[in-house]
C-alpha cells in the first residue's frame, strides 16, 4: 500500500499523464529540428592527413596525440565500409563532409552572459538545460557560483565538434572526479588518456571507429577515483548543428576500483534534407568492484516521413569489465537517426563481472535500425542479461543483432536474452539475429524471442475509455517497453516515454 502513496511511482507503470500532455503539446513534429544560426569556423571539406593535423592543432594537442591520429588515418585508408548490417543507404562520400566546425564565439572565453552569442544560449534553452548550466556551458567566468535550484546533474555539451563547457566542475573535483572534455583531458591528464584511450576499442577495430580515432574533435572524459561514488549523475548533450558536418565524438569513462558512476547521454540535431554522419566511439573501463551505468536517449533527426535527410548513426560503444566483480549496465532508447548501426557491448574479463543491456529501438517511416549488443564472457562466473525491445512502424526495418560468446575459461557463466519485437501496421519489418557461441560446458545461455502486433482490440479498448488513438498507441507501446524504461534514471525515463510517443505519431490510422 505504501507505494501507492507516492504518485511518482506511476512513471514506472507505463505512461504518466504528464507525458501524455507533453506529447500533445509537441504536436507530432521532431521537437529538436531547429537550427541555430551561429557563425562557425570550418576546416575545409574532406579528410586527409592535413585535416587530421589541423584538428589536432586546433585542440592544442601534444605530439603523441597527433601521431596517434595520423596512424589511425593511415589505417582507415586501407579499410572498406562494412556492408553486413541490414541497412540500405546511398553511398557516403567521406570527402564531401566537414570534419571540423566550431562556434566562432568559443575562440575566446566570454566574460559574462552578455558576451555570449545569444543564439548559443537559445539553443541550450531549447534543449531544456537550466540557466546556470547554460551560463557554464557558454563559458561565462564565475558562473559556477551562480545560485539556482539544486539540480544535481553535471552537464557537458558538445556543439558540433566542440565541447562548449562542463558544469559542476568544482564540486566534482572535490570528490576527486574528473569530468571534462576529452580535449582538456588530453592536455591536463595525458597519463590517463595515454593509458586508456583505444584500450577498449582499438584504433583498428572497425571502419567507423578508425575514422573516429583519426578525426574525433571532442567528447567527454570521466575518471572516478578508487572507492568513490560519483556525487551526481553526469550527462553529455551532443548536438549536431552545422550542415554537412560529420560529428565524431569520443567518450572515455574510467571507473577505478570500487567506484560508481551513472552517466547519461542525449543527442539531437536539426531537421535537414541532407543526411548527416555521426560516428562516435565510447570506451568504458570498469575496474575491480566498480560499477558504471550508461544511459542514452538518442534522438537524432530521423529523416522526414518520406525518408529524406536524417542522421546516419554509426557508433561503437564498448565497456571492458576488467576487474573482478565489476559491473556495467547499458540502457539505450534509440528513437532517432535515419540509419542506426550500434552495438553497445560488454567484455566480461574479470571473474564474477556482470554486463546488462536494456534497449528500446523505435523505427518509424523509413528509418532503419540494426542494433543490439555483444556479451563476451571471458572470466569465470560472469553474468549477462539482455532485454531488447524493438518497435517498427511505417515502412521501417528494425533488426536486433546480438552476440553472446562464452569463452573456454568463462566457467559457470550465464546469459539471459529476451528479445521482443512489436509491429505497428503491415509494411514494416522486425528481424532478430542472435549469434551464440559457447566454448565450455558449464555455462548456460537462454534466449527468448517474441514478435507481436499492436492489437486493434487493445486500441479500441483504450479509446472506449476515452484516450485518442495516439495516446492509446503510446500507452500500449510504453507498456511493451516497461522493463527497459524502468532501467533508466527517473528524469530520462520521463523523456524517453515522451519520445516513444512522439516517434510513433502518425503510425496508425
Amino acid at each position, binding site marked *: *500500500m505504501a*507505494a*501507492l*502513496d507516492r*504518485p511518482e511511482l*506511476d512513471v*514506472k*507503470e*507505463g*505512461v*504518466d*499523464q504528464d507525458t*501524455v500532455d507533453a506529447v500533445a503539446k509537441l504536436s507530432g513534429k521532431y521537437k529538436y529540428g531547429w537550427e541555430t544560426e551561429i557563425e562557425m569556423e570550418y576546416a575545409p571539406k574532406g579528410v586527409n592527413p592535413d585535416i587530421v593535423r589541423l584538428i589536432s592543432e586546433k585542440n592544442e594537442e601534444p605530439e603523441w596525440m597527433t601521431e596517434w591520429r595520423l596512424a589511425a588515418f593511415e589505417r582507415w585508408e586501407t579499410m572498406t565500409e562494412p556492408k553486413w548490417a541490414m541497412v540500405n543507404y546511398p553511398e557516403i562520400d567521406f570527402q564531401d563532409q566537414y570534419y571540423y566546425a566550431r562556434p566562432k564565439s568559443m575562440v575566446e572565453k566570454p566574460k559574462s552572459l552578455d558576451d555570449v552569442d545569444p543564439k548559443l544560449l537559445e539553443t541550450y534553452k531549447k534543449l531544456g538545460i537550466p540557466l546556470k548550466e547554460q551560463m557554464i556551458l557558454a563559458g561565462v567566468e564565475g558562473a559556477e557560483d551562480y545560485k539556482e535550484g539544486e539540480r544535481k546533474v553535471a552537464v557537458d555539451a558538445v556543439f558540433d565538434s566542440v565541447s562548449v563547457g562542463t558544469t559542476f566542475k568544482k564540486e566534482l573535483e572535490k570528490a576527486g572526479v574528473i569530468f571534462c572534455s576529452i580535449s582538456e583531458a588530453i592536455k591536463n591528464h595525458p597519463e590517463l588518456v595515454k593509458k586508456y584511450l583505444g584500450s577498449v576499442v582499438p584504433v583498428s577495430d572497425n571502419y567507423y571507429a578508425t575514422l573516429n580515432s583519426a578525426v574525433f574533435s571532442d567528447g567527454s572524459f570521466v575518471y572516478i577515483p578508487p572507492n568513490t561514488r560519483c556525487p551526481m549523475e553526469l550527462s553529455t548533450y551532443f548536438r549536431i548543428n552545422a550542415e554537412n558536418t560529420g560529428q565524431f565524438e569520443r567518450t572515455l569513462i574510467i571507473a577505478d576500483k570500487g567506484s560508481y558512476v551513472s552517466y547519461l547521454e542525449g543527442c539531437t540535431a536539426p531537421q535537414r534534407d541532407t543526411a548527416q554522419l555521426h560516428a562516435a566511439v565510447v570506451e568504458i573501463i570498469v575496474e575491480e568492484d566498480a560499477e558504471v551505468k550508461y544511459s542514452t536517449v538518442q534522438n537524432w533527426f530521423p529523416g522526414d516521413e518520406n525518408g529524406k535527410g536524417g542522421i546516419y548513426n554509426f557508433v561503437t560503444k564498448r565497456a571492458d569489465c576488467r576487474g573482478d566483480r565489476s559491473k556495467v549496465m547499458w540502457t539505450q532508447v534509440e528513437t532517432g537517426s535515419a540509419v542506426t548501426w550500434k552495438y553497445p557491448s560488454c567484455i566480461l574479463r574479470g571473474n564474477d563481472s556482470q554486463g546488462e543491456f536494456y534497449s528500446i529501438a523505435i523505427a518509424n517511416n523509413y528509418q532503419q535500425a540494426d542494433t543490439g549488443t555483444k556479451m563476451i564472457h571471458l572470466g569465470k562466473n560472469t553474468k549477462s542479461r539482455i532485454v531488447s525491445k524493438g518497435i517498427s512502424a511505417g515502412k521501417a526495418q528494425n533488426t536486433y543483432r546480438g552476440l553472446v560468446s562464452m569463452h573456454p575459461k568463462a566457467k559457470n557463466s550465464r546469459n539471459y536474452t529476451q528479445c521482443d519485437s512489436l509491429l505497428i501496421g503491415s509494411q514494416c519489418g522486425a528481424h532478430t539475429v542472435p549469434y551464440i557461441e559457447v566454448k565450455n560446458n558449464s555455462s548456460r545461455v537462454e534466449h527468448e524471442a517474441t514478435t507481436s502486433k499492436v*492489437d*486493434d*482490440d*487493445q486500441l*479500441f*479498448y*483504450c*479509446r*472506449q*475509455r*476515452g*484516450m*485518442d*488513438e495516439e*495516446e492509446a498507441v503510446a*500507452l*500500449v507501446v*510504453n*507498456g*511493451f*517497453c*516497461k*522493463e527497459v524504461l524502468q532501467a533508466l534514471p527517473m528524469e530520462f525515463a520521463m523523456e524517453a516515454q515522451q519520445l516513444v510517443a512522439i516517434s510513433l505519431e502518425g503510425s496508425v490510422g
Partner: protein
Amino acid sequence: MLEIKNLHVKLEDEDKQILKGVNLTVEAGKVHAIMGPNGSGKSTLSYVLSGRDGYEVTDGEATLDGADLLDLEPEERAAAGLFLAFQYPVEIPGVGNLTFLRTAVNAQRKARGEEELSSADFLKVVRERAKTLKIDADMLKRPVNVGFSGGEKKRNEILQMAMLEPKMCILDETDSGLDVDAMKLVSEGVNALRSEGRSFLVITHYQRLLDHIKPDVVHIMANGRIIKTGGPELALEVENNGYADLLAEVE
C-alpha cells in the same frame, strides 16, 4: 438519454446484414435489458454504439442526449458519457491498472474541458471505489487484465465504470464466466452506480443476472431486431420457456 432509430448495420468486409432496423429508447435513470439467442446481434449493437471498426451503418441513427453518436470517434463517445463493459476485457501488458485508469479519467476530463484530477485526489477516489468491489492494492498495480481471473476482469470493468462515471452504461454479457459470488459482487457494484442521471443497457443470455440487477424494461432481440418488449416478467418467461415460442410468435 439513448435513442436508437431504425438502425441497420452490416459487416464492413462482408455482405452480411446484422442489425435490421433496431428501435430502442432508454430513458434517463432506467435499466433496460436485452436478451436474445446467440447471433441475434446483441453484441454487435454494443460495438456499433461504442464505435468499433468493422461495421457499416447502412441506415438509421443513434443519439445520446441528442448528440449523434455514429458521427463521433470512439473516444468522443466515451467523453460524451458512453461506457461499454466488455464481454472479453482486453489485456495490456506492462501498463499498470492505475496508470490506465488515470490516463482514461484525465483524457475524458480534458476532452470535456474539465481540470485533470491530481494524483492524490485520484488515488483517494480509486481506493474507495476499489474497496467496494473488493479490488485490492495488488490488483490495481498489476498490468491491465493480464493474468486476471474471469471474475477479476469483470470487477475491473465495473471499477473503470465507477471511475469514469458515464451517463450511459452498456454491459455486454458481464455475467459470462462468473460464479455466483463474483456475479453478486459485480451486480452490487453496478447497483451502487444506479442513479437518476445514469442509464444502463444490460445485455445478457440469462435471467439470473437480472435477479441481481433489476431491469425496468426487458427487450428480446432476434435476427437483428427487437421482437418483443416488456417488463421484468418477460425475462422470467424466457427463462422458463426459452426463445422458441417468442420466435414462433413473430414469424
